[in-house]
């Protein structure tokens, strides 16, 4: 019995990842029996949960939590509940992301802190607190961005947070090798998500990579073949 936890599960790459792991015929080695969804409370989340419950051919156990992972107190309360109510998390997908792209002179420091809290501190705290509780991960996937590889004008806070996430993933990969845990960082390029609409409002989302494509890559990483491509930041780009 393998348990998957996905943050930012209400939409976009997170929701598609949940859907992918619920499929009727999962690829070998990635059979997940229980999925823990984490997202802020929203109408999107509620309707997504209803839709997932209505089409669940493998009867995967779905456990939904409502929490803002950018709020450290809420996040620590979440990990406590997950450890007590769900038990071990085998696969973790740190997907929740936040951005408010503005030029340097217009960056509100509190907003920069919010960006770092969601994109960097939340993955760190989830991993650290669950490890402290004795959790043993098989696989951790951190969803970064190509914006974290090359800084983009106007995206200072987002680019910086994702660059830090890419770097943190390298450290996690080395340090968690003692447990046999695989740590993968993926950096999707332009993907048709709500976050992308904030970054590029005038872009036609049908012309770019879809969240389902990124979810398929995450599923591949959880499969046996995943260990052959997990040694570096993996760029996923159209």
């Amino acid at each position: 019995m393998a348990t998957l936890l996905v943050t930012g599960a209400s939409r976009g790459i997170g929701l598609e990842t949940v859907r992918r792991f619920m499929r009727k015929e999962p690829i070998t080695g990635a059979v997940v029996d229980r999925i823990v969804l984490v997202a802020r409370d929203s109408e999107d989340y509620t309707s997504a949960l209803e839709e997932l419950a209505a089409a669940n051919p493998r009867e995967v156990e779905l456990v939904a939590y409502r929490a803002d992972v950018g709020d450290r107190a809420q996040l620590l309360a979440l990990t406590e509940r997950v450890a007590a109510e769900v038990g071990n998390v085998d696969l973790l997908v740190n997907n929740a992301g936040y951005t408010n792209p503005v030029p340097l002179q217009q960056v509100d420091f509190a907003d920069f802190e919010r960006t770092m809290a969601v994109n960097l501190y939340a993955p760190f705290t989830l991993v650290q607190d669950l490890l402290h509780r004795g959790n043993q991960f098989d696989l951790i996937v951190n969803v970064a961005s190509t914006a974290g590889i090359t800084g983009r004008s106007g995206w200072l806070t987002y680019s910086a947070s994702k660059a830090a996430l890419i770097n943190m993933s390298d450290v996690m990969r080395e340090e968690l090798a003692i447990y046999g845990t695989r740590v993968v960082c993926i950096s999707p390029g332009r993907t048709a998500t709500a976050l992308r609409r904030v970054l590029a409002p005038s872009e036609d989302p049908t012309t770019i990579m879809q969240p389902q494509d990124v979810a398929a890559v995450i599923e591949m990483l959880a499969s046996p073949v995943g260990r052959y491509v997990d040694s570096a930041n993996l760029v996923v780009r159209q």
Partner: protein
Amino acid sequence: MYSLLLLNGGVGQRAGAGQPKQLVKVNGLPILVYSLVAADAVESITQIVLNYPEGWREQIEAVVEDYAIRTPVTYVPAGASRHESVGLMLAEATEDDVVIHESARPLVTTEDFEHLVASEHRNASLMLEIPFTVAPVDPETRRVTGYLERSTLRNVQLPQKFSTADLRDAHAYAAREGRLFTEDATLVAVAGHDVRFVPGSDRNIKVTTATDIRLATYLLTGGDED
């Protein structure tokens, strides 16, 4: 079931930078972590007896807590010698058999412990063939005094395992005879018990010098796999 006596109390400073060698970092992690995590995953190890150099218990306990070691840990102050330390730790062992390891061997794996425990012999030590020739000498006169047949010699490694009763008997024997031993496989054998060796691995090095740390880091990070 086994009590692991994890030797961690040495005060040697050769590899250290102003701290006890068990807190020296190998690839960024305290060297003690590697043995703790590897042993923690061994089901038949149900107790870890861990010693610490005087004044460092708090730091050692913090490592155990931070890494969420699940096996119950019993803390024992280090003795004046390795021999004495094993004796003090042995007094705290609650299981009928013990495994002895030292934190200065961070390349030990869970499989190494399991392989040793699976040996049909109750008293056994990982040992390695010696790939070089050693000579018996008189250090005073520098006279070479004879010949040692390499094929009948082994490099003693850790981990080792013993019947708790046999190891206690051997330590009582050494006390009676007033002898100190630098490791326990030969002690238990000299005390009259049957001890066998299990072939070890040359990766399982003892980290003593700064060069050893670099070599261990190279091996731990897969530098030898390219």
